[in-house]
């Protein structure tokens, strides 16, 4: 009985203490933080650096933006991260940022106007940072494109209104003619539906103010100097500027035909695709660069963690102007062009997906392609050997650098022979030792 009472008490304590945690508002404090718009190899990552982090990370020889701001921060115990309340308080701190190397100031940064320009649209990962007049110009270009789009949109709405009226008239005319007994093809001209204007295919963020930082590889310190010459307390941070360990290669994302939701990456040139049985694989190539895991994770958000001894590949850009080849040694087995595919849901008890080529029928039925990719089929007719898949620039016979990946079709059924193979040193030893014994008198 006593044990039940103790258990109930313990559960009650746990519930009450948990309730306490939930009810307790995190303590907010006013702090200087650096807001970061850091180039991550492909695009820009936005984050902020709380006082708990003493180091900022940037990629060398690329522009990133930092800004010193006063805001409320609080520690969120569930995620174990500091959060910033920029909506409650967001005060840009005046002054200049000094960059120090070996204790000496090597650069003093003034706030500049900048914009992030997305040439492939807002949702694309690709972005470029422009500053000063170029930033203004890019934004103005975007604004005028948006205004032009808005004008076209207004025109479109007007055309649609007219179209609907004409269409209604058309339907009315048809109805009247049918009611009057007219049959067959009528000679009434059907109104043409107007097409909506294409949205602006690029995007530029509203120009903002910040300190643009572009440094070569090295370790630095930064600090914020007030207009009165003082150094802002808590503004001193270390800066690690790093570069990619390997760059210029091609990485692949593979969509296995039988599990389209669980994709594979074959980024590192040393990685090998091992296959058993029949497989249909969809390859998506990317330009990529390799960065230190800790540095890159911290660049994306200084509160992230990572391992300094590990490396990660970052996909910079999808590659779509190439064709791929599957070869065995020098012999080319398949040449594969990029094509659209459609993922069809399989109804019924065997719920799942099926990837099929996107064709005119799907187009006429109003479906859009689910993805575009390079399809490689590894049939069971292929002997279990080593194959190579690689990307070639259209119109060229040269492989893109570091684009080759090995595919090995395995003989899984022979796995049990692995243990007997391990005995061969012992057999060798027995022969050597026996031959020695025969030469010794006993």
């Amino acid at each position, binding site marked *: 009985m006593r044990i039940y009472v103790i258990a109930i008490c313990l559960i009650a304590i746990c519930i009450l203490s948990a309730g306490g945690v939930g009810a307790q508002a995190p303590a907010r404090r006013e702090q200087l933080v650096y807001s970061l718009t850091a180039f991550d190899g492909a695009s820009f990552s936005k984050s902020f650096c709380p006082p708990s982090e003493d180091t900022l990370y940037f990629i060398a020889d690329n522009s990133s933006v930092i800004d010193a701001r006063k805001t409320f921060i609080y520690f969120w115990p569930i995620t174990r991260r500091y959060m910033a309340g920029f909506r409650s308080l967001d005060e840009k701190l005046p002054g200049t940022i000094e960059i120090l190397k070996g204790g000496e100031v090597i650069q003093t940064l003034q706030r500049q106007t900048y914009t992030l320009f997305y040439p492939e649209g807002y949702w694309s990962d690709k972005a470029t940072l422009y500053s000063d007049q170029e930033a203004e110009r890019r934004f103005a270009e975007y604004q005028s494109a948006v205004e032009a789009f808005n004008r076209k949109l207004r025109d479109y709405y007007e055309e649609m209104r007219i179209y609907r009226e004409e269409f209604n008239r058309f339907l009315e005319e048809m109805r009247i003619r049918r009611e009057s007994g007219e049959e067959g093809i009528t000679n009434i001209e059907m109104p043409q539906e107007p097409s909506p204007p294409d949205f602006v295919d690029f995007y530029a963020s509203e120009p903002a103010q910040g300190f643009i930082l572009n440094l070569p590889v090295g370790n630095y310190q930064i600090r914020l100097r007030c207009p009165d010459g003082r150094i802002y307390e808590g503004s001193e941070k270390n800066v690690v500027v790093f570069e990619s360990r390997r760059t210029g290669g091609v990485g692949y994302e593979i969509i296995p035909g039988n599990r389209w939701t669980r994709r594979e990456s074959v980024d590192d040139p040393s990685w090998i695709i091992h296959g058993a049985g029949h497989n249909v694989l969809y390859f998506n190539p990317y330009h990529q660069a390799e960065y230190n895991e800790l540095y890159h994770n911290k660049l994306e958000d200084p509160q992230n963690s990572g391992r300094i001894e590990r490396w990660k590949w970052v996909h910079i850009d999808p590659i779509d102007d190439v064709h791929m080849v599957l070869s065995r040694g020098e012999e080319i087995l398949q040449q594969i062009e990029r094509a659209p595919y459609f993922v069809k849901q399989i109804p019924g008890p065997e719920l799942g997906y099926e990837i099929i080529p996107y064709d005119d029928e799907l187009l006429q039925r109003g479906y859009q392609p689910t993805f575009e990719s390079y399809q490689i089929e590894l049939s069971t007719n292929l002997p279990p*050997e080593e194959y190579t898949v690689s990307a070639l620039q259209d119109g060229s016979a040269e492989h893109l650098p570091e684009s080759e990946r090995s595919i*090995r*079709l395995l003989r899984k059924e022979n796995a049990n022979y692995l243990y007997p*193979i391990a005995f*061969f040193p012992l057999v060798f*030893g027995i022969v050597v030792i026996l031959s020695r014994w025969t030469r010794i008198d006993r």
Partner: protein
Amino acid sequence: MSNRGGVVKTLFKRDFVYTFYSWGFYVVLFAAFMISSFILKNFLDGIREEDILVSAYPLNYPLFISVIVISIYLVMLSGVSISREREHGTLEVLFYGPVTAGNFLISKYFKDLCLGIIALAFCAVYFYLVSLTTNLGFTAGLVRALVMGVFMISCVVCFGLFISSLTGRTRSSVLVLLAILGGFLALQFVHAALIGMEREALSTPMLYLRETVSHLFRGINWVSPFAFLNRGLDAVVLDSPLLFGLNIFYAVVYSVIFLILSIISMSLKGVKA
């Protein structure tokens, strides 16, 4: 051949040949290959029928394990090679004659290195047979890893010889080796654990401890032969000729330094246990 060369060759030949007349070498290789077979069997079982598995050279990991097992055997073998001869008195008998610390150590070094090379040749045969059986690739990367393995084994052997040159008895050598390698391993473990922790979760003394451990870890990276092994095989995976060459250079420098230290230490310590 010069007098010294002749002595080195004779000492080398005796040690080298007689290692093959005992079971140790074969049992170690057998153990390494059994572990490798276990890993590879699991790898193959991990690929379902009509599916793929992406991995780095799958033979590299078992090769790495095999090289580690062989290295542990060689570090122990070289680690007791001088102290055992001191303890058994055979070193003293050799030094009655025209044998010097230098040619004795060089013969021991080449003996252990050649044993390592033979062990790697066994690895090459094993992995080739595995490759024939399963079509797991016997790649150029594997050949590069085997070549790099020779230089890594050189570091391991020189480290073992150095420890052996400091100690008078086999048991002391083994204990010192175990203590040092255990220390390296423990430090690596503590470093990994501390680095994995959030700064927020660490008190000030723990932060200092983390800094200290980090510095020690960096230092150990240039002292522990197994760190050289890691870096060398990393260079193979990275497929960078520069890193490959650089790691070979580091391994050669490391070996020369430890060999010289061993000769000095052996001359100072003498022939008696």
